[in-house]
């Protein structure tokens, strides 16, 4: 009996040790979010949804503004403005910083919600996703994140690193897809169809989300300067957004007034390339990042 218990304990310990070792191998290829929960508390943040996650490159900002930035943006499902995102930002931000720079990207979707009542917070999609269920955002390896959010798919950690998405250490999500015109047109068409058919009809302005945008800016103002930016999108996407909220700039005016500046780049939509009409291609993202950095520098 003793022998059995000793050997079983040894066997289980070896398995647990190997499993922990495998978990510790998780990196930017594992999933599009993991690394953002493994870095220390940050002084300067880029915030928003997938547009800024893929579009804004911290290394470009560093070059122009001489400080490290961290891209803590997720997706429209995970990080629209709300209590979940604000709480996570509070965990991620260095509480002692007083002269930080915060770039908050905005768009009509991040202050909208679907469903009959867009202000029903119990119905917010982010409530059940990574930002809500991960309490530790600065732990490396982050076992809490991995156990809660990669369950059933831990094997992905060991998979060949040839996926289209790679999350950099600074939080920028690099996306590599074919940019030949046929492929781009196909993706734009599919994305626009999806937005027209599914997203637009069910989306409505949420005053709760709008209020959380304001609260986010107010909170960040306690730690430094806040710059709000609306990133460029394809003309087709802009048309849909105009249908959803033609007066978007008026809607966010209160938050803009609290901030240190607002840059609306939708008048430059034709100048950039998009992988699907919604997200900037990485080369265009570099240009947009540079433009925002220069604008902040000029302030």
């Amino acid at each position, binding site marked *: 009996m003793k022998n*059995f218990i000793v050997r079983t304990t040894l*066997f289980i310990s*070896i398995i647990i040790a190997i499993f922990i070792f495998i978990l510790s191998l998780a990196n930017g290829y594992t999933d599009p979010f993991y690394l953002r929960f493994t870095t220390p508390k940050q002084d300067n943040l880029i915030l928003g949804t997938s547009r800024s996650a893929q579009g804004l490159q911290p290394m470009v900002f560093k070059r122009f503004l001489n400080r490290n930035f961290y891209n803590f943006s997720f997706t429209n499902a995970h990080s629209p403005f709300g209590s979940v995102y604000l709480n996570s930002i509070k965990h991620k931000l260095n509480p002692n910083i007083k002269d930080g720079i915060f770039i908050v990207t905005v768009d009509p979707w991040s202050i909208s919600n679907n469903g009959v009542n867009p202000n029903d917070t119990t119905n917010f999609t982010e409530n059940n996703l990574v930002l809500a269920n991960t309490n530790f955002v600065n732990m490396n390896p982050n076992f809490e994140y991995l156990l809660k959010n990669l369950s059933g*798919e*831990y*094997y992905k950690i060991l998979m060949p690193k040839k996926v289209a998405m790679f999350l950099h250490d600074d939080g920028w999500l690099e996306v590599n897809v074919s940019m030949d015109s046929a492929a781009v047109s196909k993706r734009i068409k599919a994305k626009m169809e999806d937005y027209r058919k599914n997203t637009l009809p069910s989306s409505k302005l949420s005053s709760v989300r709008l209020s959380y945008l304001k609260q986010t800016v107010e909170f960040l103002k306690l730690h430094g300067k806040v710059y709000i930016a609306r990133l460029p999108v394809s003309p087709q996407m802009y048309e849909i957004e105009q249908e959803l909220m033609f007066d978007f700039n008026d809607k966010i005016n209160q938050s803009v007034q609290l901030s240190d500046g607002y840059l609306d780049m939708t008048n430059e939509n034709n100048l950039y390339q998009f992988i699907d009409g919604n997200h900037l291609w990485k080369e265009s993202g570099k240009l947009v990042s540079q433009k925002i950095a220069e604008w902040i520098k000029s302030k």
Partner: protein
Amino acid sequence: MLFNSIGFAIFLPIVFLLYWFTAKKNLKFQNTLLLIASYFFYACWDWRFLFLLTFSTLLDYYTGLKMQDAENQKAKRFWFWLSVIVNLSFLGVFKYYNFFAESFAESFSLLGIKISPWTLSVILPVGISFYTFHGLSYVIDIYKDRIKAERNFVDYAVFVSFFPLLVAGPIERATHLLPQIKKERKFEYTKAVDGLRQILWGLFKKIVIADQCAIYANQIFNNSSDYSGSTLFLGAIFFTFQIYGDFSGYSDIALGTARLFGIELLRNFAFPYFSRDIAEFWRRWHISLSSWFKDYLYIPLGGSKGGTWMKVRNTFIIFIVSGFWHGANWTFIIWGMLNALFIMPSILMKTNRNNLDIVAQGKFFPTIKELTQIVLTFGLTVFAWIFFRAENLSHAIQYILSIFKNYGSFFVLDNYLKYKIIIIITSIFILVEWMGREQQYAIENLGLKWNRFFRWSLYILIAILVLLFSGKGSTFIYFQF
């Protein structure tokens, strides 16, 4: 509490340690502990159904004693039928009432008469079909004077509710399990290690094979109209491995767990997908249920003694009842009927007991004839599983028609990487099962003669694979039955 959950991973070692250390050498204490643990295990699903389990146990215990002590055959018959009727009534109310009410209303609607059936909104108590059949076999065996009634209530209650088999079998017989419960049990190292090995293989089947195949089987069956014929065919194959991995994986964990407590349960699976005909398949698939129906339904109906017509009739009856046992849905009944049809040629030609041995015994490769028979039998099984998995009959028929009609892109599925991994792992799994088909379970003897380092490496590899795919905590298919 699922076998593949953290809860069970904590529960099992606690019960194991209490059983062998605290209760050691005290049979009464061990059995009481097993009973408390089993009731706790069941209460984790829904404590309210404990009353049903307790009532069912008390009923069969009491009627068993009454039959034993009956002064005449009439009294014995009374207690026997009381037990059978009450047991089947519970099953009928909880499992079949809504089906009959809805089918009744539907048949009237065909005549243009609209009836709103009065249905019950109760959930099916987990494991009800299994513990009801336990109890029934006990009562029938006493009635037929095959066994004596058990006078110790705790021992009887452990027989009905022993946690490894409580919710999805194997369906035990009093003649097999009760003597083990009543006998002093000693810890045996080799048995316990073998139990752990079988648990490991069961977890592999469930988490790595069944749960992964389920992702695509569900995707394809739930959106069958969106897929090409070849993809639908692949979906049926995925479900075929899902249900095997799920149910035989559960059985392996149950048998392995019982062995940790010094108890041997009935074997439930014997590599059914390597069968050479449908009769052999049914001797190898869910063995405890097949043998239950054979002993308590087929043989009492006359079995094969009354000529060809009686054999055909009885075969159809047990397969239809077997289908119905699985669930109150026409898809299960058709699944049962299909299997009866598939087995019919061998019954009529009296070849149904041709393949009693293990295919290609002592050899690695089967003959061309054996391989052809295996592939054909597998194909028939896959076809029947479509009915088992489909939402309803029209879905099943539409699915089958689309396989043959709806040509298009070959095997179109999302997430190609994962799909490739599943195919590779399933192929390795089939190979390991083939290599181990002469054992009780595939890895029973695998690596036993190897150096300890390599043997442990093999087990660690399997365990790591289980962990890498684990975490979803998906339930077992047979819990719904």
